[in-house]
């Protein structure tokens, strides 16, 4: 599913590599927990996995297609088709309703819209189904996203990342804004939904306590051979 081979990455202008990973493979439907301290290059790695950044050397492939083989516009399309993404926070467009936020990826990706329609009849129905599964009360669905609590917003973000069953879901510290009980509930929900959708999950966090639920855990520090500090100042 995800295949990283001999990756070298340097932030433009820094002159030295901040990421050097020889091999990383995530099989279809697997869940990978990546942990590392803040500023350890986690977001950079996710950017490379999602094809937003391109490696200086080596390759990152998704579904057997190296990101570097695609043009900028094709990368955007490919990402929309195959990758769901969850941020730390501020995942939603505040001026759209909850339901519209969940449907959003289907507006940009024909293949995800097609899959959502295939599964549930329409993108709208698929979004409603997902919102039910993440336990968001129906009364909130038509509200502007800005009026939801942080915990509710993250559940909506998970539903959005999963609509149209993308092959890969990437989550960048999605629980850091949540307190303990909410965090556990969210983790359960994300893992379950990814399993149901058959999506591989790459989850990045500095909080190692979350790792137990995953198929595989990796420390970025072990993975990364680059000696220099990873994040640009």
């Amino acid at each position: 599913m995800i295949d990283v081979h001999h990756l070298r990455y340097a932030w433009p202008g820094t002159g030295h590599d901040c990421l050097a990973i020889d091999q990383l493979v995530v099989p279809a439907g697997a869940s990978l927990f990546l942990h590392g301290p803040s500023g350890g290059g986690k977001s950079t790695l996710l950017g490379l996995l999602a094809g937003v950044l391109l490696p200086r050397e080596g390759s990152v492939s998704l579904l057997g297609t190296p990101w570097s083989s695609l043009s900028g516009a094709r990368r955007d399309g490919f990402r929309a088709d195959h990758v769901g993404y969850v941020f730390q926070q501020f995942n939603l467009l505040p001026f759209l309703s909850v339901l519209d936020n969940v449907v959003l990826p289907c507006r940009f990706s024909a293949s995800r819209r097609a899959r959502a329609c295939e599964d549930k009849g329409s993108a709208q129905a698929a979004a409603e189904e997902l919102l039910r599964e993440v336990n968001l009360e129906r009364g909130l669905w038509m509200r502007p996203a800005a009026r939801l609590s942080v915990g509710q917003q993250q559940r909506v973000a998970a539903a959005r990342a999963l609509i149209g069953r993308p092959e890969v879901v990437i989550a960048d510290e999605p629980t850091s804004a949540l307190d303990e009980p909410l965090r556990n509930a969210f983790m359960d929900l994300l893992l379950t939904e990814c399993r149901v959708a058959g999506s591989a999950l790459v989850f990045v966090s500095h909080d190692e306590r979350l790792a137990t639920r995953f198929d595989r855990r990796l420390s970025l520090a072990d993975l990364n051979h680059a000696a220099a500090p990873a994040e640009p100042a």
Partner: protein
Amino acid sequence: MNSLLAIAWRSAWNRRSTLALVVLSVALSTLLLLGFERIRTDVRENFSQSVSGTDLIVGARTGAVQLMLYAVFRVGGATNNVRMDSLQAIARHRAVDWMVPLSLGDSHHGFPVLATTPAYFTRFLYRDRQPLALARGHFFDGTLDHLYDAVIGAEVAHALGYQLGQHITLSHGSGAIPGAEHADKPFTVVGILERTGTPVDRTVHISLQAMEAIHLDWAAGVPLPGMKIAPEQARNFDLEPKQVTAALLGLKSRAAVFAVQRAVNDYNGEALMAVLPGVALDELWDVVGVGERALLGMSAMVAFVSLAGLVAVVLAGLNERRRELAVLRAVGAAPRHVLLMLATEGTLVTLAGVGLGIVATVLAIVAVGPWLQAHYGIGLTLSAPTVEQWSLVAAVIVAGVLASLVPGWRAYRLSLADGLSPRT
């Protein structure tokens, strides 16, 4: 793509108060530009139509602009007078319909005095062949019974606070020499003219005979010592003028204008010249029209400043929108979508502003036009936009679209550099 525009619309609606301010500022600059341009063209129009319906202006041989200056604008003086019999000879030309002699030289509190015949009030036209109209009273009739009647322009009445029946005395010349007053022969205001926006507003009109009468006991610009002719006695003298300053000519057919002009210029008895008012006014405008260009330059600056404001507002809002752009990127929007979104928004905001500005301009002309006409004599017309106005509108739109591309381009760069996690 439709869904992208729908999202752009929702996003814009979410920031509607800020955008409304931008629309307002674009509308204001459109209003200023179009308003200035309207005033500019109309002032020029008013100027070039200070006199209409007159085919030729005849005076002693001098420059065309100078003749216009004193005959129409009452500025400066004539170097030579025209003999009345010369004018009468010209008036007998078969192409000439009418002739109105003008005699200038005296003043009243700085306002020029024009002596003429009653025909002046019907023959002199301005703007679109509009005749002079009375606000109050009546025109003088030119008879000896009403020798000392005066008809004053709107500006004279307004500035000096004159009503009908007011007694006024005229000063000899420009009034610069103290004591050179025609105090012994006071005039009565019998008519006040409507405002025209032409030099007529600043003029005191009397009859040619009255002009003769007040100068009976004068010679070479000073009162003759020991000679006093009472106002009543003056009626007994021959008051037909021997010479005047200039004359307005109307022709039976405009086609003959060059033939008559040549006849006047070649007149044997005296060195005369005839000018076409339209041509001479255009020449004169070239001299005084510098202010017009300054006005246009100023409105261009106003437009530039408000478009710079548009860019500033959008750029300032951009940082807050980086999150929004990152989310859009994460769900599959490409940087070009982001660029398109911002450019569309900027274009629509500009168009809305320009549209509002045009509506505001029309309303302003309708609302303020009569007031301007009454107080300053500037007749604003609600006519179809001129070519200049269309190009100004086009320039504002083009500049607005370009200005909205600046933030769009920056957002494009930011969303490329930020990737999916904005470093804010």
